């Protein structure tokens, strides 16, 4: 019996080792691929044609759709940031999704809103009825739609989509701030390759702790709390470099709901954002891939790393846990809904590589990580694993994770260099260590809970994420390089 247990644990150890090796190597490869692309852009950067995009009358107009639910702390700054975007022709549509706080009142006071006749195209189905529609009388291209809340962000975005007038629709969150030229940058693939590009996404960074003045971010600073600092690193590795790498490979599966630009007709064609999905952004991106591939279209979905959206990340453990459980639950829904694509050669790289990767490493990663830890503990208890081997296992697993995080930090330092102070660099290095010594395990636990919720068909916990709002800065802002 003991021999069988030893054999079983040994096989499990090999399996877990192999899994960790493939997972971290894939992270490393994505980081390196992203670094290569970023280096390429950096070498050619000064010749980029953003001024021409701004000046050209042929630049497509954009409808910026912003869903807001109880965002009184930051909605005015976010809308001001959106209205201050450097872009030739655009409108901002704020969908107040039945807020119970003063979100609407703050907007109304700031932009002198006047009620107009409610009207929308029935482009996509919405669940919550539109209550009223308001337009700014301050000469800002701003429309505010008030609707009944059905506890689905996607429904709010769909309502905005039905009001959008322009051929491109940019979805942003009301707790986010776009850099002034973010729209010019994220639209570039559309103007360079209008026949093929159907969606683009920008990078998401944590705004906590950075000063904001009149809708513009000043010199970025790392957040004060360690939980938010670790998320800065996580966003850098996964959302910026990871997605850059996938985009270069042609397998970008997620355009973040916080900042994505879509062809309006393409979104309407897939029925808008799925209101039953907890990961409507990933669902929409995969649906766009599917629709294009099934039709035989020559298409592209592109990630634009230097187009930046700053968003407030959860700073308390409870908020973060709720968010991550919901993400994991949502990813399960997406994988179930699009299971036909997984491993299906008909869907090319998306079907053969990207979807299986997300299934094995993003969705089931938490299970394997925790099984690995459990196997070592069990082995220790049964006496089939020595304590020095257990330590060796832990040190290697954690060390590899730190190496991957440090490589992401190196890319940030060389290419993007958003955080300029030495103390911030030291804090980032410390965050690399802390991320792998506790946070990662905790995160795996939350993801596992999300999976359990999905299997148990339990309703996700929404709850409100507590917003601190943006830190004000009095002097004129210094735009990030």
């Amino acid at each position, binding site marked *: 019996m003991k021999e069988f247990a030893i054999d079983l644990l040994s096989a499990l150890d090999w399996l877990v080792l192999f899994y960790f090796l493939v997972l971290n190597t894939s992270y490393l490869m994505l980081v390196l691929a992203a670094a290569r692309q970023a280096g390429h852009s950096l070498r050619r950067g000064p010749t980029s044609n953003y001024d021409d995009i701004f000046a050209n*009358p042929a630049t497509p107009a954009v409808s910026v759709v912003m869903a807001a639910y109880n965002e009184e702390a930051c909605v005015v700054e976010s809308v001001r940031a959106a209205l201050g975007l450097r872009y030739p022709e655009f409108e901002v549509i704020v969908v107040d999704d039945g807020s119970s706080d003063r979100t609407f009142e703050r907007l109304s006071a700031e932009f002198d809103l006047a009620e107009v006749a409610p009207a929308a195209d029935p482009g996509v189905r919405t669940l919550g009825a539109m209550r009223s529609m308001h337009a700014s009388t301050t000469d800002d291209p701003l429309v505010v739609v008030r609707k009944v809340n059905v506890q689905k962000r996607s429904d709010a975005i769909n309502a905005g989509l039905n009001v959008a*007038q322009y051929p491109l629709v940019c979805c942003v969150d009301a707790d986010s701030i776009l850099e002034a030229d973010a729209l010019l940058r994220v639209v570039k693939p559309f103007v360079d390759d209008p026949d093929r590009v159907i969606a683009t996404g920008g990078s998401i960074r944590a705004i906590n702790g950075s000063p904001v003045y009149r809708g513009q971010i000043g010199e970025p600073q790392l957040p004060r709390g360690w939980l938010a600092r670790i998320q800065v690193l996580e966003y850098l590795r996964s959302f910026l470099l990871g997605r850059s790498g996938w985009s270069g490979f042609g397998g970008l599966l997620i355009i973040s709901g916080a900042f994505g630009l879509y062809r309006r007709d393409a979104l309407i064609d897939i029925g808008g954002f799925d209101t039953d999905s907890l990961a409507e952004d990933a669902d929409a991106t995969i649906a766009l891939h599917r629709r294009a591939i099934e039709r035989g279209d020559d298409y592209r979905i592109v990630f634009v790393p230097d187009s930046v959206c700053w968003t407030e990340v959860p700073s308390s453990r409870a908020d973060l846990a709720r968010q991550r459980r919901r993400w994991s639950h949502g990813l399960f829904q997406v994988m179930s809904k699009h299971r036909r694509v997984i491993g299906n050669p008909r869907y090319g790289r998306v079907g053969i590589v990207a979807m299986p990767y997300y299934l094995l490493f993003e969705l089931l990663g938490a299970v394997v990580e925790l099984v690995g830890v459990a196997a070592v503990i069990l082995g220790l208890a049964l006496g089939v694993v020595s304590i020095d081997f257990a330590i060796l296992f832990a040190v290697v697993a954690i060390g590899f994770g730190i190496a991957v995080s440090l490589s992401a*930090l*190196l890319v940030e330092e060389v290419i993007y260099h958003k955080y300029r102070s030495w103390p911030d660099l030291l804090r980032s*290095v410390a965050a690399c260590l802390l991320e792998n010594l506790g946070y990662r395990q905790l995160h795996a636990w939350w993801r596992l809970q999300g999976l359990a919720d999905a299997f148990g068909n339990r309703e996700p916990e929404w709850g409100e994420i507590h917003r601190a709002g943006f830190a004000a800065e009095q002097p004129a802002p210094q735009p990030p390089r």
Partner: protein
Amino acid sequence: MTIRTAFEIALLVLSLTLPLMFAALGFLKLSREWRSRRYDQLVEETRPLVMAALDAPTSIDLSGRHGAAAETIAASLLPQLRGADRDNLANLLEQGGMLPQARQGLRSRRAARRQRSAELLGAAGNRRATAGLAKMLDDRDEEVRQTAARALGRIGDPLSVPPLLVALDLKRVSAHTVSMALLRIGSAGADELTIALASDSPRVRAVAADTTGALGLIAAVPTIEDLLTDENHTTRISAVRALGRLGVPTATPTLIRRLQHELVVPSLTFDEDYARALITSLGQIGERSAIPVLEQSLMRSYRLSSAAADALSEMGARRAQHSNHESLDSEDRRTSDSVPSEMSDETRDGVASTVTQSRTPQGNNLS
């Protein structure tokens, strides 16, 4: 190999790699700061020399360490300069050997260098580079081709128009880039543009229509009107947009007919983007005869009705200005006073409540 050995090897590799990565982070930050300080100092020393050369076209020595800094300063300044200032700075770069080097750089094996060279030559308005840049429209690197097209636009030589249109037709350069280049070349390329309106390529026809509209080439109106029924969707919309920009009243009856036709076609063949473009253009032209069809459009989908409301509002605002009434500020444009007086009371109320915003573009200046 046992699992323990594998872990021990991994640990060894990590124990070497991690300290190196920590050290690299510190080194990179230090070296970035040092380079940045050194560069700033160099720019501070060189900038007065470059600025002096702008005021008086004298020859200055740009050899040595100041050369690279001068090139960078000049490259950043050139796109913002016009006329004599740009010529003086370009002369400075020619004498300093940078423009000859850039012309050679167009043949470099490195794409990044070809691209940087094209950018500099374009910014300097270097006509001697026109032929070389035109050849680059067929470069194997897409970004280089786009940069070459932009550079040709900045140089402004009408001889570039045909190669630009060929590159557009062959999908070597995007329509957006070519249209901007043609706009920069301006009316000097009017003859080629008018010919291009009858091109076999729908891409070329669309860009030619858009550009003639933006450049205000009135003589092209009859040919553009023919494109209103073009088989290609993009070309049709470009033609409508062009007529709106040109603001020629004689085009109004044709536009009205097209819009009336669109409003009665079966929903399957209804082209909403085309109808929206027609409404916007009728608003831009501002003829009273368009009011009934615009009123009719108010009853249609949200996208059409809001475009119609904007168009009627724009017509009202313009008429009010023409009448020399009190000047309309942006707030007035949203009130029913701003809509044309020919409208029925019902429509005036409808417009006042449907007009949601003014959509005055921020950009689109060609400076």
